C-alpha cells in the first residue's frame, strides 16, 4: 500500500513492450503486488461480424482469419468448413490433407512467435531470436506455396485454392527438418534454463476444475492435465485418420503451459509428415460451389493454437451471410484467468508480463 493506505493505480499497455499486442490493463498495486487487474480492450476492434454480412461468400474468405494475426489458418479453415456445412458439400481428400498441413504449420509458427514473446519477457533474447528464425522459414514456405507470408487464403469453401507445385514434398520436408532442429535448440535454451524455471515454475497455477469453470480451452487447459482437444474429441478434416498424441502437463502452472506448447510442436510436425504421404496429385483439390447459398445454418468447431474456436453462420438464401458469430478463444485468458490468478497468488508487477506471455493470448481475437 502507498503511504496513505491507498492502492496505486497504473496502466500497463497498450503501449508497453510486455503487453500482448495492442491491449491495455489497468492495474491496482499494493507495493509490488498486483491485487486487481482490469482489461482495456477495443484498440483492435473492426467489427468483423458486421463486415461479413456485407460481403459475398467468396469475399469473406479474406476477412475470416484476420482477427488472429499469429495463427490465422485454423480460422480460415473453420470458415470454409462452416460454409461447406451450410452447402452440405463433401470436399476432396487432398484438400483435407492440405488444410491439415496448413493448420499445423500455422500452429508451429504461432507457438514459435509465442516463444519469442516469452523469451523477451523473461530476458532470454537468444532463444527468442532462434524462434523467430524458425518461424521465418515457415513464413517463407507459405510465401512460396500461397504467395503470402502472413495471410494465406489457401482454404476456400469447396477445397483448397492451389494444387501441388513442383517439389512440394521435398521442400516441405526440408522446412520441417530445419524447424525441428531449431525447436529442439530453443527448447533446450528456453525451458531448461534455470532463470526461466525460476520465473515460471509454480507461477499462475490452475487446476482442471477451475480452468473449465473459467472457460479455458487449448494448451492452458491441457497443461492442467486434461487431454481435451477438438482434433481428438470431435475430429474434423482427417484428424481421425492420422496418428498423434495430445500432450498434457500436470501442475497447470506457467512452466507446464510452456512445456505443453513445445510438445505440441513435435506432434504437429508428425501430423504434417503423415499428411504429406497421403497426398495424391492425380486426384482433385477443389469442387465448385454455387454462388447462392441455401437457407440454413453452418457450424464449425476447430482447435486453434489458443483453444476451441466456433463459427456459426446463418444464411437466408442469398449471396451473403445473414449473420456470422465467432467465438474468441483468447477472451477467457485475458479476462477471467488473469483475474483469478491475481486473486489467488502473489503476482508482482515484474511477473505480470511473464504470466501474460505464458497464457499466450491473442489481443485482436478478443476485440474482433
Amino acid at each position, binding site marked *: 500500500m502507498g503511504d496513505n493506505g491507498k492502492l496505486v493505480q497504473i496502466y500497463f499497455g497498450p503501449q508497453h513492450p510486455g503487453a500482448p499486442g*495492442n491491449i491495455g490493463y489497468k492495474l491496482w498495486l499494493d507495493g509490488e503486488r498486483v491485487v486487481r487487474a482490469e482489461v482495456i480492450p*477495443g484498440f483492435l*476492434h473492426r467489427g468483423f461480424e458486421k463486415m461479413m454480412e456485407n460481403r459475398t461468400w467468396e469475399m469473406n474468405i479474406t476477412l475470416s482469419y484476420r482477427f488472429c494475426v499469429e495463427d490465422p489458418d485454423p480460422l480460415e479453415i473453420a470458415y470454409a468448413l462452416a460454409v461447406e456445412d451450410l452447402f452440405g458439400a463433401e470436399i476432396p481428400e487432398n484438400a483435407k490433407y492440405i488444410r491439415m498441413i496448413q493448420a499445423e504449420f500455422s500452429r508451429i509458427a504461432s507457438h514459435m512467435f509465442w516463444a519469442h514473446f516469452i523469451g523477451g519477457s523473461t530476458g532470454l533474447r537468444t532463444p527468442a*531470436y532462434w524462434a523467430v528464425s524458425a518461424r521465418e522459414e515457415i513464413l517463407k514456405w507459405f510465401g512460396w506455396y500461397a504467395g503470402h507470408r502472413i495471410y494465406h487464403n489457401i482454404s476456400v469453401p469447396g477445397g483448397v485454392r492451389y494444387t501441388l507445385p513442383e517439389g512440394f514434398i521435398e521442400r516441405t520436408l526440408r522446412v520441417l527438418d530445419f524447424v525441428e532442429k531449431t525447436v529442439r535448440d530453443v527448447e533446450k535454451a528456453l525451458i531448461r534454463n534455470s532463470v526461466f524455471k525460476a520465473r515460471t515454475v509454480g507461477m499462475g497455477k490452475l487446476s482442471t476444475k477451475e480452468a473449465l469453470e*473459467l472457460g479455458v480451452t487449448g494448451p492452458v487447459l491441457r497443461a492442467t492435465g486434461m487431454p481435451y482437444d477438438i482434433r481428438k474429441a470431435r475430429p474434423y478434416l482427417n484428424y481421425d485418420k492420422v496418428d498423434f498424441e495430445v500432450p498434457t502437463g500436470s501442475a497447470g502452472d506457467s512452466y507446464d503451459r510452456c512445456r505443453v506448447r513445445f510438445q505440441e510442436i513435435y506432434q504437429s510436425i508428425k501430423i504434417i509428415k503423415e499428411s504429406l504421404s497421403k497426398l495424391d496429385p492425380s486426384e482433385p483439390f477443389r469442387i465448385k460451389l454455387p454462388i447462392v447459398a441455401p437457407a440454413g445454418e453452418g457450424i464449425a468447431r476447430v482447435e486453434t493454437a489458443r483453444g476451441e474456436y466456433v463459427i456459426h453462420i446463418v444464411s437466408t438464401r442469398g449471396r451473403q451471410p445473414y449473420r456470422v458469430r465467432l467465438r474468441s478463444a483468447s477472451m477467457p485468458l485475458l479476462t*477471467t484467468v488473469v483475474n483469478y490468478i491475481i486473486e489467488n497468488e502473489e503476482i508482482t508487477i515484474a511477473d505480470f508480463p511473464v504470466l501474460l506471455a505464458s497464457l499466450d493470448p491473442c489481443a485482436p481475437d478478443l476485440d474482433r
Partner: protein
Amino acid sequence: MGILEKIFKWPFSRSLWMIHYCSACGAVEFPPLVMSPVDWERYGYMPAPSPRQSDIYIGMGYLTKKTVKLFLNMYRQMPEPKFVAAGCNCTATGGLYWDSYATYKRLDDFVEVEGWVPGCMPMPDDYTAFIEYFRRNLKEREIGKYVSRIKPEAFKKIMEWEKLEREWLKEYEEKMKKESNILIQYDFTETYPECFEKDEPKGICKTSIRPVRVRKVLKELKDKGYVLFININTIDWPKKGVIEIFYIVENPSSGEQIWVKTFVPRANPMIDSIHDIYPIAYYIEREVYEMMGVVFRGHPNLKKWILEGNWEGPPPLRKDVDTPSFVVKTMYGGYKYGR
C-alpha cells in the same frame, strides 16, 4: 551545408528509434525486421519503450478510432524532431476495412506523413526499402523541417464524426420506441430437454426454452457436466420482431455441445444474466449488450466495453443499423471511392 549541420545530421539519420507500439496486424512482421533475418539494428534502429525517447512512429495497419486517439496523445509526448510513417494499405485508404464503423480511413487526416509502405501486409523488404529511403531523405533536408506535425483540424474532425454518431443513436432510440407496440409474429415451441436438431459428428444438440427459464436450465446443465461456457450467439430478426439467443455450453469429457435457444423481443430486449453461474459470461454478456443491445437483468457492470471510444452510435450488429452507408456518407462524402 555547413560542417556543423553535417555533423548533426549524420548521426541523427543513423539512430532512428521507433516507438515500440504494435498498433495493429502489421506489427507481426516486425520481429523478422528487428531480429533475424533482416536485423534492422545495423541501420541504427531500435524499438524504444517510451514515447519520450523515440523519433519515429510507424502506423502498422488499420487505425481504430480508439487507437488514433491514443496515438495523438502519445505523439504529443514525443520530443522533436519526430516523424510519422504509414505502413500497410489500411492507413492509406482504409484498405480492407473500408466499410468498418470502428476505423478511421486515413492517417494523413490527422498528421503529416513522411512515407508510405504499401501492401497487405508489406514484406520486411518493403519496410527496409522505406528506412533506407528515409535515411537518405533526412540527410538532404533542412534542419527546420525535422518534424511531421499534427494537423490543426484533427481533433475537430474526430469530434464532428462522434457528434454524427450520437445523433444517429438518438434517432434510433426514438424509432425503437415507436416499434415497441408492434405485435411479435414469432412461433416458438419449447423442446427442452429434447433436441430439435442434432448434429452427431460435431456433437451439437440444439434445444429451445422460454426466456424465463434461462437461469434454471443452465444451472441444471452445469450440474449435468456441461461446465464449459463457450459463447452467446445472437441473431436479429427485424421482420419477426425478435432477437434469437443461443447459449452454448460444452461437456469437456465427451466434447458434446448443447445450444440452448431462446428469444427476446427486439423493442424491449431483456433477459436474466447468468454471470454468477458461468464467470466468463460476465464478459460475453457485456459484449452482446454493446453489440446487439440486449440488456441482461442483474449484471453488475453493464456498460460499453469493446466499443468504448470506438463507436457512439446504435448497437451495430442490429440488422436495421446500416453502418456501411453511414461510413460511406460521413467518411467518403457519399461515394465509396470518392477520394
